[in-house]
Each structure stands twice: as C-alpha cells, then as structure tokens.
C-alpha cells in the first residue's frame, strides 16, 4: 500500500476506498508495460540497442519504445562509460525526467569503470551519482541480455520494487556530495530537487546536509515565472 504512485504518500494514508488498491495495481501494471526509454548513448553499449528494438528482438512487444527527450521517458539507459563531462548531462537529463523514473546502467563501465578504471576523466560507479535500478553487465551485453534486463525491470515495477528514484530525493545530499566532489563546488542543475522532494513528501533526514547547504549558497534559484497582473 505504501508505494501507491499516483498520489503523494501523505495523501495515501487518508484513502479509504477499497477499489483504490485495484486501481493502483492497474496503474502499476500499465506503467510496467509502457516503458519509454531515453537511451543515453555514452559508449559502445548503444550499438546493442538497435537490434533489441528492431525486428529480431522487437522490444515494442514489451511496450518499450525509444524516446528522445527526458520529459517523455521513463527509463534512462546509460550505455557505457561515463566521462565527467557526460555525467553532468546525464544528471541534468535524469533530473528532468518525470517520476517515476528508472535508471539502467548497461555495460561494465557503468558498474565499476570497466576498462576505463584508470581514466582520470571517467566516473567509475554510476550509482554514486544517480540511483541505479538495474545494471546489465557485460562488455557489451547482448540484446538478449538487454531484453532480459528490461523484463526484470518490468517485474520490479509491477511489484512496486523499483523505487530508487525516491532514493534520489531521500538521500539527495549523498548524491549531491558525490557530484560536487567530481564537478566542483559551484555545481548546480536547473531542477529544484529539494523543492520536488518537499512536494512529493520524500523529504527525509538525509535529503539535506552540508552539500545541499553549499548548493544553496552558490546556486541562483530558478523561480518559475508566474503570470502576474501587476
């Protein structure tokens, strides 16, 4: 009952409608069967995706479709090694995706840096910076592995276990700390993560800390333009 996704958690407690459960199940089912992925082709793993999508393996029969903007996507596929510069973009893109959102790391490079272990310019462990739901290891993983990973993710979603996006809000300070360590103190993204955390009721004890304090010092907050008559 806890993870009913369409409402914020605070709202769920008040719900008394018994059908709500059915409804939420239905929504989760739909969600798992309609996965739009943003394949962020950072490295060689990207080459395995076209066969996975086209006639041989046809991911569309699972309801999985490629999408081109983070706004439309549910899954962020990071397909290979992540250089520091790329990571900034990945984080920006991730934060722009609407929740619930899932991150899949493909290839060994996203797991531990892989063959770029010794590279000074490469982020080694993706999960340090983003909450990764699923790794598909391999160098590179075959389309079968990708499809299999996807099915696994679908299962996780259906059962409500793919919740790592909440983790990003709950432990934002941790992720931000790692990001700041890599990108410097003046790092900021346009998305107001703290505000979103408040809004979704995911603002936990670890959401804020020294890193967010630093962020609040340096960042220029982007307050949306509201319509005003005066």
């Amino acid at each position, binding site marked *: 009952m806890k993870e009913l996704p369409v409402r914020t958690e605070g709202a769920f407690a008040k719900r008394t409608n018994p059908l709500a459960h059915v409804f939420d199940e239905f929504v989760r089912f739909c969600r798992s069967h309609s996965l739009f992925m943003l394949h962020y082709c950072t490295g060689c793993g990207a080459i395995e995706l076209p066969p996975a999508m086209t006639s041989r393996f046809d991911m569309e029969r699972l309801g999985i479709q490629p999408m081109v903007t983070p706004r439309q996507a549910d899954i962020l596929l990071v397909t290979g090694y992540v250089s520091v510069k790329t990571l900034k973009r*990945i984080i920006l893109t991730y934060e722009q995706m609407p929740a619930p959102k899932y991150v899949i790391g493909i290839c060994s490079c996203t797991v531990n840096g892989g063959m770029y272990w010794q590279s000074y310019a490469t982020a080694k462990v993706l999960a340090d910076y983003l909450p990764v739901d699923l790794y598909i290891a391999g160098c590179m993983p075959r389309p079968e592995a990708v499809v299999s990973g996807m099915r696994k993710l679908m299962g996780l979603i259906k059962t409500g276990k793919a919740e790592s996006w909440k983790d990003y809000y709950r432990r934002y300070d941790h992720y931000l700390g790692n990001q700041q360590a890599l990108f410097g103190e003046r790092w900021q*993204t*346009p*998305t107001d993560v703290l505000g*979103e955390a408040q809004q979704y009721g995911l603002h936990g004890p670890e959401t804020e800390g020294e890193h967010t304090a630093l962020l609040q010092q340096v960042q220029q907050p982007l307050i949306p*333009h509201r319509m*005003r*008559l*005066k």
Partner: protein
Amino acid sequence: MTLLDGLWLASALTALAAGLFGRSPSAGPWLTALYGVQFLLVAFMGPLAYGADPVPASPAFSVLGYGLSWQFTALSWFFAVITAGAALAAAWFMSGAWGRHYAEQGGDLRLLQLALALNPSTMYVLLASRDFLSLFVGWELVSWASFVLMLAAGGVGVRWALRYLVYAIGGAMAVMAAMVLSHALTGSFEFGALAAVVPDLSAGTLWSLVILLSGGFGVKMGLLPFHLWQAGAYAETPGPGSAFLGAISSRMGLYAMLLTLFGVLGLGTLKALSIPWTPLEAHELLAWIAAFTIVLPTFTALKQNDARWLLAWHGIGQGGYMLMGVAMGDALASAGGLMHVFNHATYQAALFMAVTAVVYRTGTADLNKLGGLVTRMPLTFLVLLVGIIGLAGLPPMNGFVSKWLIYRALIDDGQPLLFVAAVVGTLGTIVSVYKLLHNIFLGQLRVEHESVREVPGSMLAPMLALSLIVFVTGLAPGLVLDWLTTVQRELGLAVLAPTLGGVERPDGGLDMLWVVGILFAGFGVGALIFLAGGRARTVHQLDNYAGGHFLTAEVRYHYSDNFYAGLMHRIGPWYRGSFQWLQDSVVAATDLLAQAAAGVYRVVQPAAWLLGVTVLALWWVAA
C-alpha cells in the same frame, strides 16, 4: 439641427479641443469623453440600421452651380458606428499612461490628438456624401487627415506617409476623372443622374467608370497592385493612430466603392459587363483582384519581422475578403463582406493596441527581440490571442462568421478558385499570426523583460472591451447581420435573413450559438481528460531540454527568426517583391523622364528649343 449636424459639430469640437488642449496628457480623458459623445450621437442614429429614414445634414452648398448635400443612410451609419467606435477606443487607449509616455518620449501629443480627431470628423463628412462632388470633397479630406496622422510620429513614418500621399493623390485623381466623366455624361454630379443614364451607356464608358472608380477607391483599400504604401504607412503611425487607421481608414475605400459601383452603377450593371474573350464579368474581376489582395499581402505579412508591419500587411489582406464578399454580391457574400468590415475593425484595433502595449512596455515591436511576455502581460496576451483568432477567422470569434458567409456563398456560386484563394489566405493568416503571438508572448522571456509589467487600465480597458466585442459578435453575429440587411436593401443587393446565431439554411447553415457551444463543450471534455492527470509542477523556462545542455539566461533560446524557414524555402521566391519591382520601375521611369525634363533646362542654347519647336509647329501646321 439634425443628429448628423450634431455629430459633425461634436467631431469638429473634438478636433478643436484636441488642437487647443491636446498637448497636455491630462486632457486625454476629456477628449475621450468627447469621442464618447460622438459615439453616442452615432448610436442615436441607430434606427437607421433598422430601416429608418435617412438623416440629412442641414448645411447644403452650391458651388459653380453644383449642389453639395449630405445625409446619413444605413450604409453610412454602419461605417460611422465602426468609425466612432474605433476612434473612441483609440482615444481611450491614448488618454492616460500612453499619452504621457508618448509626450515624454518627445512625441508631439497635440499633433497626434489633433490628427486623430481630424480623421473621424472628415470620415463623417465622407460617409454622409450623397453626390460625386461631396464624395470627392470628403474623400480628399479623409485622405489628407490620415496623411496628417501618419506624419505625426515623424522619422521613418514620414517616408511612408509621403508614399501614401502619392498613392492617395493618384487614387483621388482617378476618382476625379470618374466624377468628371460622369459629369460629361450627365451634366451633373448627382448620383441619380448617372444612375438614370447607366442603361444607355456603352460598355467602354461603363468600363472606364468601373476601372476609374474601383482603381481610385482601391488605392485607399490597398487593393493589388496599389497596396505597397499601406503597410508601412499604417505600421509607422504611433500606436493608437495605427489602431484607428488599421481598423477603419482603408475601409473608406470600400464604402465609396459600395456607394458608387454598387449604389449608383448597380450590381446588375457589373454583372452585365463581361470581359471580352473571357468568361469573367466585371464583378468577378473585382473578386479576383480581391483574391490576389487576400493572398499576396497575407503571405507578405508572413515575412515581416515587425509586429506592426505584420498586422498592417494583414489589414491589406483582410480588405480583400471584404471586397470579395461584396463583389460576389449575393445575400450571403455581401453580408459576409460587410460584416468583415465590422469584425476586422474590432480585432484589428485590439491587435494594434496589444502590440502598442507591448511596445509601450518593452520599447520594441521587433519580433526577434521579444518573447515570453505571457507571464508578464497576461491580459495583453489574452487580447492578442482573441484578436488573432478573430483575424485568422477561427471559431468562436467574429472573423469566422464573416469568412464562413463568404465561403458558403462561393460554394453556392461555384467559384472554386476564389474559394481556394480565400482559404489559402486564411491559412496564411493562421500561420502568420501564430508567429506574431509566439514571438512576442510565448517562448523564452528575455532577461531585460523580466521586470516588465502589465499595462495600466487606461490602455487595457479599450483592448479588453474590443476583445469582448470580438467574442460577443462571434457568439451572436445576428446583432450585426441585422444592420446589414438594411444596408443590403439600400444598395439593392439580395437581402439576407439572419438569425441571432447566423444563418439558417437547410443545406448547411450556421448557428454560432451552437458552434460556440459545441466547441466549448469539446474544450470541457478536453479539460476533463487533461485534469485526470495529477497536479502539475511549474518549472522555470531554463529547466528545459536542450539536448543535455545547461541553459543560462544569457543564452538566446527562442526560435524566432525566419520562423517558417521551410515554407519560405519553397514559396519565398514566388513572390519576392514583384510589385515592389513594378513600383520601382515606375519610379525609375519617372525619374528617367524627369532627368530628361531637367536636361531640357540645362541646354547651352535655349534658343535651340525655340527654333526647334518653331520648325515643328510650322511643319505640323503645314501638314
């Protein structure tokens, strides 16, 4: 002292007051009140629109043995009510903050007020004319009054005003030729005298009259190929002035055409005049000119990068719909054409005001230097939105009704090409006005415009009032169509039988009450669907997908220049200044001739000319 005298007096008083006190911005509200009096006086003449007897003017002159007399009829009233309304709105708009701002910017407020006041007062004279002489007098007065208004801003406007002047005088001369021709035929300047001899006239004479009258009045309407002056002249006039000019000024041409071509010669005559070796008749020729006037200026508007120019070009194009409707001449089409005059006046004035409001706040009308203002000037945005929906002729605004009437008539008459031209014009308008809206109000808000505020009430009120009229007459077009039946009767056209919502016909009518109802029901269902989703979180404009790039306020992230690149790639070369070329070559030819003329006076031996001309004269005499 009839109501018409009162109207003239009131408008003259307004002009006088504007001339005396116009310099002070605080005179604005008082002048607006005077315009209100004018409007009321016109409104009191309202029974005209429901078939009351014409209202004569007391003064009547006689010059060189020819009488001049004036009176208001339903046709005059219909145009007068638009004039009075437009003038009132324009005066209201400039009565407060805008006028002060204009004066502070170094503008000559007195001149502007005076020029604006002169326009309606001369128009009332023109609208009341009932013979060729008074028509011409009124015509010239109106031309010069708008010239003064165009001059008011100085700067670039002067160039355009001068260009306008050349065109206007040319047109006036054509009218004069027609008038004198009519005099040569009948020995008098009375409309009735000409109407009486029309059946006996040869086709050649009739053609001369038709061409001279439609050409002369067409200049004012900006009919092709006499349209090149209008956009610049209207656009470069100070805001409220351009709102007034754009709303009604060029429609005086239509009025005069209605009065002479349709009132005097008669639609029957035009229909009987066929063009040799073609299946076309005179009224169809007019409709074709109108069709080209719709299409070319509309697509020229598409190319504009200045909001005022864009609107002004559309003003020319929309004139084509009016003429097309009137020229087709059946009940539906003429009602549509006439109603478009009203509709166009309402939304065009609102649009020009909205753009002026933007200029007032941002200092520019350059479509490449604006953007995102919707959050800062939402009411102005609303006005502009209503206006462009009207201009594009989409439901539920009033522009849709008039266009529907014209389209329906074109289908009835079996005029596929005109129909397509009209629709192409509408499509071009939609495409073009979206650019206007998008480049000003949507997209990225520039840093320098973050502190922009909504315009003050004195400017908002007339705009909103006009928008309301645009919507209400769209919802219940019968209000206006009722007037037009009287006008149609006066002009001897087929008479429409309107309902409150439009027209009832078994084979496809129009009931705007239903149309609007269905549309809003659709929106309601759409809203239900939309609202089924959760609450949305508004984000800053820079929280935006840019292929992963980080956006900053310094980055210009608004697609505005060459907005329809693909379209222009295809059709741009089709109409690259062909009429400009025509105009330029006429000017160049004149210039060449002028050089030759000046050369005559630079000759070393002027006696050579003497000898030459003597020999020539003697030779001619001997021959």
